[in-house]
């Protein structure tokens, strides 16, 4: 039964809860309605549509809207609208501040005269001081309020530094204006232009950072944009277009060529090809017929189909993916922890450095020491940028995880992203990972004697199908599948006898047939000499040979194999080229395992490994000092995936269980695995560049601002230059993270 979540407006007291719940419960089809008063939401289990629920709430005197849980697009547009308002505000603040700061700075540069030496100058600079105060109040208010709030909370942030830096410059200048005689003549310089310029430049930096940040969430925007707004459902024999949130479980949905699939479901009628690339990264459209699963957000390419809705609203694969990517984008890899520790102490340390710097200049600086002390302390406060440090990791993670999602690689969190970049050994499960996981009949070899008697591949296949028609063994199913594909119908067998571990025996058309492995043939003394070479050849090709005899004479070999995925060889080579040790694990016998390993270029493999032994193998590798990635189907290999440093669940299309691993590969190709490693490495490289840049910037900028270059080079930084450097250091970090958007995994 579908569950809707409604947001209630106008509920002001606890008694409203009962009233709203009762109103909803009276709607036909409602089984349960529960209101969360604190959140002002009602959760309703109902077979009716949400319009009826909203109407009932409105009749009770309140307003209701469908919760944002299903409406990521609305949440996104609200966020973008809020960001736009904030951006405009920052730009207005910047223009106001620079319209005072730039003329003042130009005046200072041209005339070189920014000091107070007469009563007229006192009046003029007093007016400028008041104008600067207005800039501080209107354009820089957020810095001062933020700094004060943080101060009250015994914490300090970027606002604290800006407020202190600009505030100190303004206060000193006002002292110069009001009591110039208290300051040595050489130091009667005012710094109003620095205050206005710094406020303007930092607002500009914040606005640019906001813009650049917008681009870091491009991937999630694209995912959210995949969700269509309406669906065409069949109700009472009529096809009607309805809002996506009105689609309920078991609705029959019509999709025509070129349209998007609206919710997850199972095809009930028709045949088509569906482009799933936006979710899985798989470039080729996937054929879908009756019984196949379809996923919301994918595009129907060729035929018109009907499908039954199996997952709607926030339960679709697309909604899961969006939630997971959003969460992962906000998480932090361990590499960011050092920056976190530093940024926690950063601002008070900078304040202390500013005080120490001022004291050193006052004690040992040249005349006028007080002016030098003021300039260096202000510059130290302004140039230090905790934001660049703080932004370094999250911005890259945001882009990297989004980029991965575009390639059909879902990374659970920042830690998985970081560890994936450090993997030294990759363990691959054979069945379903390297191979397709679905055995297929590959060869039918008929003996010359039987061929002379008129037996063909088709007649042999028909006999094999007759013997195996009742079996559910994967090898038997491979035979039945080929027989069905070729339109061959199974005949009738008599005196059927299954011989465990060997095969089967039966009578067909009065003839005694044996079908099974070499042991079955040997125990019945059937001469295999004619086919020894071929059988060895088949085994060497990772195929399992099965023998068919008719009236105690060998008739044919039927070989079954689990084919290796088309691109496994190339993808494994990509992993090995990255210096990774690639190891294969399989429950199969050694000969088959070796053949598969040889074919895909793997030199290390473990055969005949029971499912419960897989995690022990992973631990063995970890004990050797390897950082181990384990790739499997996420269901049978769950314990090994969990114990590995990074577990990769490899899926086939959109059906994969995305909750079961650290990293989920939405498409079956192992190239997804190589892509995941490549993206995580690129992201970590990007984070390191950002962290390095931010550390170096602060480590070099702060001492220079404090004046360490002055004794040797006579160089002292202007506070305005420090403001510009600080503002653009964060923008640089975000821009560098945005470079990841252009990352392309190796061509394949």
């Amino acid at each position: 039964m579908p569950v809707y979540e409604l947001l209630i407006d106008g509920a002001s007291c606890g008694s409203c809860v009962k009233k709203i719940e009762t109103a909803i419960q009276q709607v036909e089809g409602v089984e349960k309605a529960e209101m969360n008063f604190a959140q002002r939401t009602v959760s309703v289990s109902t077979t009716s549509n949400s319009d009826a629920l909203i109407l009932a709430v409105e009749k009770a005197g309140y307003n209701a809207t469908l919760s944002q849980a299903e409406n990521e697009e609305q949440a996104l547009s609200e966020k973008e609208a809020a960001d736009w308002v904030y951006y405009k505000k920052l730009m207005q603040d910047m223009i106001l501040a620079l319209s005072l700061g730039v003329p003042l700075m130009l005046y200072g540069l041209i005339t070189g005269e920014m000091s107070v030496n007469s009563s007229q100058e006192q009046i003029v600079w007093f007016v400028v001081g008041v104008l600067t105060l207005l800039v501080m109040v209107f354009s820089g208010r957020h810095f001062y309020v933020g700094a004060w709030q943080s101060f009250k909370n015994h914490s300090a942030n970027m606002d604290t530094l800006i407020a202190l830096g600009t505030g100190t410059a303004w206060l000193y200048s006002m002292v110069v204006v009001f009591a110039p005689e208290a300051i040595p003549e050489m130091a009667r310089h005012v710094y109003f232009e620095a205050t206005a310029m710094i406020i303007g430049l930092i607002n500009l930096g914040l606005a640019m950072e906001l813009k650049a940040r917008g681009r870091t969430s491009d991937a999630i925007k694209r995912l959210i944009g995949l969700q269509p707004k309406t669906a065409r459902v069949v109700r009472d024999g009529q096809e009607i277009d309805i809002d996506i949130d009105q689609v309920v479980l078991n609705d029959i949905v019509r999709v025509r060529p070129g349209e998007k699939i609206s919710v997850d479901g199972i095809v009930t009628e028709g045949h088509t090809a569906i482009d799933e690339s936006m979710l899985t990264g798989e470039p080729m459209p996937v054929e879908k017929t009756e019984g196949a699963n379809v996923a919301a957000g994918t595009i129907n390419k060729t035929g018109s189909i009907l499908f039954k809705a199996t997952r709607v609203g926030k339960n679709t694969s697309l909604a899961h993916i969006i939630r997971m990517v959003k969460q992962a984008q906000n998480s932090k890899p361990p590499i960011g922890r050092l920056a976190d520790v530093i940024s926690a102490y950063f601002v008070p340390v900078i304040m202390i450095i500013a005080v120490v710097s001022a004291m050193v200049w006052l004690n040992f600086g040249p005349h006028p020491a007080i002016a030098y002390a003021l300039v260096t302390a202000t510059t130290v406060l302004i140039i230090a940028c905790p934001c660049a440090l703080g932004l370094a990791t999250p911005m890259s993670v945001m882009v990297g995880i989004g980029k991965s999602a575009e390639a059909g690689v879902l990374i659970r969190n920042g830690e998985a992203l970081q560890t994936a970049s450090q993997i030294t050994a990759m363990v691959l499960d054979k069945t379903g990972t390297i191979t397709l996981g679905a055995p297929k009949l590959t060869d039918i070899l008929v003996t010359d004697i039987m061929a002379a008697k008129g037996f063909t591949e088709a007649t042999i296949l028909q006999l094999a199908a007759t013997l195996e028609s009742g079996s559910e063994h994967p090898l038997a199913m491979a035979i039945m599948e080929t027989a069905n594909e070729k339109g061959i119908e199974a005949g009738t067998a008599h005196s059927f006898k299954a011989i465990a571990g060997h095969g089967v025996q039966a009578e067909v058309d009065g003839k005694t047939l044996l079908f099974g492995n070499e042991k079955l043939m040997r125990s019945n003394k059937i001469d295999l000499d004619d086919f020894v070479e071929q059988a060895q050849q088949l085994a060497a090709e990772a195929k399992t040979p099965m023998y068919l005899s008719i009236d105690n004479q060998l008739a044919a070999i039927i070989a079954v194999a689990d084919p290796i995925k088309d691109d496994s060889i190339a993808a494994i080579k990509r992993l090995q080229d990255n210096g990774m040790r690639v190891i294969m694990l399989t429950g199969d016998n050694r000969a088959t395992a070796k053949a598969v390993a040889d074919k895909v270029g793997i030199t290390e493999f473990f055969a005949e490994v029971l499912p419960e032994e897989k995690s022990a193998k992973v631990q063995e590798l970890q004990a050797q000092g390897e950082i181990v990635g384990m790739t499997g189907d996420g269901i049978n290999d769950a314990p090994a995936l969990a114990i590995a440093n990074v577990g990769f669940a490899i899926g086939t299309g959109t059906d994969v269980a995305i909750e079961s691993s650290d990293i989920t590969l939405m498409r079956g190709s192992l190239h997804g695995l190589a892509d995941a490693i490549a993206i995580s490495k690129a992201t970590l490289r990007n984070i390191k560049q950002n962290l390095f840049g931010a550390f170096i910037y602060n480590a070099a900028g702060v001492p220079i601002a404090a004046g360490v270059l002055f004794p040797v080079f006579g160089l002292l930084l202007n506070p305005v230059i420090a403001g510009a450097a600080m503002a653009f250091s964060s923008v640089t970090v975000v821009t560098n993270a945005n470079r990841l958007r252009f990352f392309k995994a190796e061509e394949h």
Partner: protein
Amino acid sequence: MLMINLAGLLLIALIIWWFWLYKPEVVVIDTSKVDNNEFVITVENGTYSPSRIKIAANKPMSIQFMRKDPSPCAEAVLIPALQISESLPLNKLKTIQLPAMDAGEYDFHCQMNMIQGKITVS
């Protein structure tokens, strides 16, 4: 000069005391008195308010965040020890479900670690 140097040293001592040594007030959440076991932390002007809360151990509860600060830094809240990372919509309540926690201190902060808070579980 002596006075100025003493003032400077005093200022440094004050910075150390105010930002690192002083233990600010902790808001104790009495879960029996909070509606639906929920509690609101406001994100405004670059701070969490309250920034330090104390809750009972081994008892799951929800806290809500109301973000009034439009700056992008305030956009997400992380509780690393619980592997929680959530986006906070502007001017809307966002509920975060806390699991039953062992006694201890759990930091929460914005993406850039500029806005910080602490949950004390006892």
